[in-house]
């Protein structure tokens, strides 16, 4: 066995090990944080009004928050545009990555193919914009801290390497797919030996490990914000909001 082969085997093993570690940290880390949010009681009703008066209305309010960012629209139109495009293109990019995970590839994913590069570029540009915005406005510069820059830099690195390996120095799609499906079916095979792809992949693993310990938790946390997910209905007869740790009955 040649020395380089040995080294590559070791690297492969480390990457495979890291992959499983990242998946476990991501899934269990995220679930445990969300479980914390779910199980922690909300003592007092706290909807910021005007609020819907029914549970269905509150659900619609949260759905709007998740999908169209109405608060940011009210607050700052440029920030709204930047962050909405950022999130939508991120979702589309993730969706398109299904082609590395599935066989056969869903037709909807294939339909994205002609615009995929454009989506990738928009995603990258919005990251640059959000990074620039933090530095350029005195107010955002003041509130931004290291983790804020780190999260954007990490996503930027992932976007850049992703675009490069898809459109410039191509990585073999079949190899990638074999590797990813191998990981997911618990029959790991060595990753494609393509340094930029490996960098892309490692950055994604880093993001997954970082996710449950960071502000990226807003992705799940947004569903648990009492100011938004509660209806305003304290006035209905026979119906009252109960504080689980203090429930006076008379």
């Amino acid at each position, binding site marked *: 066995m040649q020395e380089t082969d040995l080294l590559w085997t070791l690297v492969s093993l480390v990457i495979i090990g890291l992959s499983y570690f990242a998946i476990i940290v991501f899934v269990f880390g995220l679930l445990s944080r969300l479980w914390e949010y779910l199980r922690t009681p909300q003592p007092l009703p706290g909807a*910021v009004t005007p609020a819907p008066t029914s549970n269905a209305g509150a659900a619609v309010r949260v759905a709007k*928050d998740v999908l169209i960012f109405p608060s940011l629209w009210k607050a700052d139109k440029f920030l709204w545009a930047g962050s909405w495009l950022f999130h939508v293109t991120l979702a589309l990019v993730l969706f398109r990555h299904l082609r590395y995970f599935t066989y056969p590839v869903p037709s909807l994913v294939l339909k994205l193919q002609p615009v995929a590069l454009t989506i990738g570029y928009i995603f990258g540009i919005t990251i640059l914009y959000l990074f620039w915005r933090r530095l350029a406005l005195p107010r955002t510069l003041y509130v931004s801290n290291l983790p804020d820059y780190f999260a954007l830099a990490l996503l930027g690195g992932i976007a850049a390497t992703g675009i490069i390996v898809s459109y410039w120095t191509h990585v073999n799609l079949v190899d990638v797919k074999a590797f990813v499906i191998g990981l997911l079916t618990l029959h790991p095979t060595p990753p494609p030996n393509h340094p930029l792809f490996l960098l892309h992949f490692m950055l994604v693993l880093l993001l997954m490990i970082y996710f449950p310990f960071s*502000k990226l938790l807003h992705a799940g*946390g947004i569903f648990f*914000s009492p100011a938004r997910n509660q209806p305003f209905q304290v006035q209905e007869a026979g119906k009252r*909001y109960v504080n689980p740790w203090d429930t006076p009955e*008379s």
Partner: protein
Amino acid sequence: MAKFDETPIIKDPARDGIVTAPELREHATAGVHCWPGKEKDFTAIGLPPERVPNWQEKAIEKFGELLEKNKALRVYMDICVRCGACTDKCQFFLGTGDPLNFPVARAELMRKVYRRYFTPGGRAFPQLNDAADFDEEMLQKWYTYFYQCSECRRCSVFCPYGIDTAEITMAAREIMSSIGVATKYVTEVVAKVYETGNNLGIPSAAWKDNCEFLEEDVQEETGLPIRFPVDDEGADILLVPPSADNFANVDTMIAYGKLFHFLGIRWTTSTYCNEGGNFGLFLNYKNLKQVNKRIVDAARMLGVKTIIWGECGHAWRAAVLTPTLNGPMDMFDPPYPYHISQFVVDMMKKGAFEGKIDKSANDDLIVTYHDPCNTARAGQLLEEPREIIRAACNHFVEMPADTIREKTFCCGGGGGLLTDEIMPIRMAGGKPRAMAVKHVKANYLATICAICKAQLPEVMGYWDVPVQVGGVLQLLTNALKM
């Protein structure tokens, strides 16, 4: 002119009634503090009489307890992305330029401590994760800046996740109060409620006297036998006004009397609880609950059918919590809790005032409406006051859209800030409201909150806006053909 240090206040004029974000002026308000409270009051309301010896440990312990008991706090500690959407929304930043009055920066004072003691990253690498010890310097920052927040929730409206700084400020004040750190103003007011039944410390005898004087005055003015009953057992309605209505804002008190006289309803106030305001909201859960319980107890003692809350903003915020805090209210006639504005609108819908309103009585007034932060953003009362004003006045103008309804500005004195030693904060915080009023050139600023009614005349005077501040109900009773 002004008898206080004006350096924290930014005097730049507004454009079209809107105050835009000023340049940052770090530490501009770092020296503006509320006076610390007194041992006597602390003891009376169940706080440690002085700062406890192991305060750091105790504060972190309390912080942990609140994280377990309060979903809002738990979630809001984690999910802020520091996008900056809130940074130009707080009236205390707009008026002072101090970046620690960004809602996000204020909350970060708490998050730094959260990360240091409750997250693995912050425990292991505090510098990398912007985490900080809860030391004397941090406690001083908490004491300063969590008492420069009026818990008005304006920032929450613009936050993509609705992060409610009021929840964070309340938690910070709860933690501080648990180690014996709180302001004189807030603790004194809570202590007065237990002693006299109201925030102003008016003794029962004086309350009764005031009501009798009012009866005589109003009789003289109108020739009508309008009554201001006190402790009337068997009345149908217990009115819980802010106590200031019987002292500083008597026009509002007279309006209650005229309204009930007109409707022929037997009503009363209570000397056990002649206060809707609840400074427990600005201190801790225990006092919030205890102060609010007095209202329900007073209603039971008098055997009334319904409680009606008067023109007070944070009283209404506490009122909507009543069924949760103090048990089911099913012994009263619904709807409950019931606000005087809702009551009037319901009566209006029933036709009680049909043909009896002479709007021209208010023709000398150009009225605009200031939404109190609490009725608008914590109490769902946006339409009712406007309906009453429209029914009673010919000249009603709205201020710019970004300054009313759910985007309303705090008057600058809510949340336990209505105290003279922080006058620079109050006048700076009132600036956005003053500029909006100036822009619409109203001569009557109507509102339904006693704190706004105490704060706004000073604000309007300071910013040179010639306008009378008054209640909403009195506009209606002024136009009623009795």
